[in-house]
């Protein structure tokens, strides 16, 4: 009943919550991503919505940080989910769904780079990099400074290191899974991640040291 009321009030988001509850009830557990994908393959649209709501923000952030351009990230994001939708008939739960999803996202990003060089033209005015009014220098806290430095350091990271770091942070993938997604070996992925973390750590620590 509460779910229904919420669905009437909040629209799409609440409906998705109700649908997730409905799926969780018969299995006594939250259904796995692969199970949801298989249900969607069989024509269950609600299963796809649940799956999408689980991963959409993380995938979007991953692409946003990789592309460093919102419009490009949105294009690639649509491309990624379009491929996931189209791949439903041939989907086999042989690997973790998130590995499959981020592999598709990674490949879409690479394809997009090859198609055009737009990603290299980093927008001079990046909406996400604009300082929020609350983050004006006079009221900026040390935390917001660290955040801005991290963001800048993330942009300066080499593409491969940034990719590995984002896969670790946003997707929560293990080194083996990261290696699988990026078509590299485990040691390479580990090395890239270590370099990325060290650079970001240095960027975060810098203001503290200077202060």
């Amino acid at each position, binding site marked *: 009943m509460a779910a229904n009321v919420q669905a009437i009030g909040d629209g*799409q988001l609440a409906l998705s919550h109700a649908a997730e509850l409905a799926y969780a009830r018969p299995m006594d557990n939250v259904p796995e991503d692969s199970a949801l994908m298989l249900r*969607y393959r069989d*024509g*269950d*649209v609600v299963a*796809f*919505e649940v799956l*999408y709501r689980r991963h*959409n*923000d993380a995938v*979007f*952030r991953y692409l*946003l*940080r990789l592309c460093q351009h919102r419009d490009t990230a*949105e294009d690639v*994001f*649509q491309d990624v*989910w*379009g491929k996931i*939708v*189209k791949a*439903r008939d041939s989907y086999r739960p042989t690997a973790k769904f998130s590995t499959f999803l981020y592999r598709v996202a990674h490949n879409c990003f690479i394809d997009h780079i090859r198609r055009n060089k737009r990603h290299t033209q980093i927008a001079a005015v990046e909406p*996400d990099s604009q300082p929020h009014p609350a983050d004006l220098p006079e009221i900026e806290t040390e*935390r917001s400074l*660290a*955040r801005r430095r*991290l*963001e800048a350091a*993330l942009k300066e990271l080499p593409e491969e290191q940034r990719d590995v*770091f984002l896969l*670790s*942070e*946003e997707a929560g*993938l*293990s*080194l*083996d899974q*990261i290696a699988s997604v990026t078509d590299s070996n485990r040691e390479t992925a*580990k090395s890239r*991640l270590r370099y*990325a*973390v060290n650079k*970001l*750590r240095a960027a*975060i620590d810098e203001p503290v040291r200077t202060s």
Partner: protein
Amino acid sequence: MTEERNQSDARADALVSQAYRDLADERTPEHLDRTILKAAAKEARPRYSRFIAWTRPMAWAATVMLSVALVLEVTNSPAPGVVSFDETIGTFEVQSPEADAKDDGPVESIEESMTPASELTKKQSNDMRQKAAEFKIKNEDILQQAEELARVQDGYNDQPSPAVSADAEQEFAAGRSLASAAAFSAPVADCDEDAVATPQTWLECIVALEDAGRDDAAREQRASLAEAFPDFDPR
């Protein structure tokens, strides 16, 4: 152990992670959500899935129904071999009681035995061919005898019965009945009723047959005479 190492390797520095968590608060734009979910719903619409789901059971049902219908058709309908056999008789227009008896036998046995359709058809076909051959032989014999009789009657009887002879020819030609055909082969046909009334006249008839060169008929008449009048000495 390896898993733990993987986890520890994969886990970025806690401070960096926390800083990134604070930074990464972007959410997917609503218009993208709507577009993607709409596209997903459109793609998920069943195209042929319902049809495909029903195809196999429908195929099985159709196969079973056709098989049952075929078996019922073969077992309940009159056997095609018997029908064509009757048609064969019709062309000859000769039907004897023996033939009727023979015809009834296989049909009953077919209905009772309920053997498979192919075996039935094969058996009926063989029976039909055999009976057709028998009837052909019988019909040829009858025609031969009729011709002989006609010759005897023309040569021996002072008053040949053309009407009877013509009828006989017609009957033989038409081949209506084996019973009537058998009548021509009886002793009375060779030697008429007046001739066989007494042993003497019968013997004269036999002599006439021998004179006409019909020794076989004469021998049959002699045998009949001996059976009818065992005390009579034909010599």
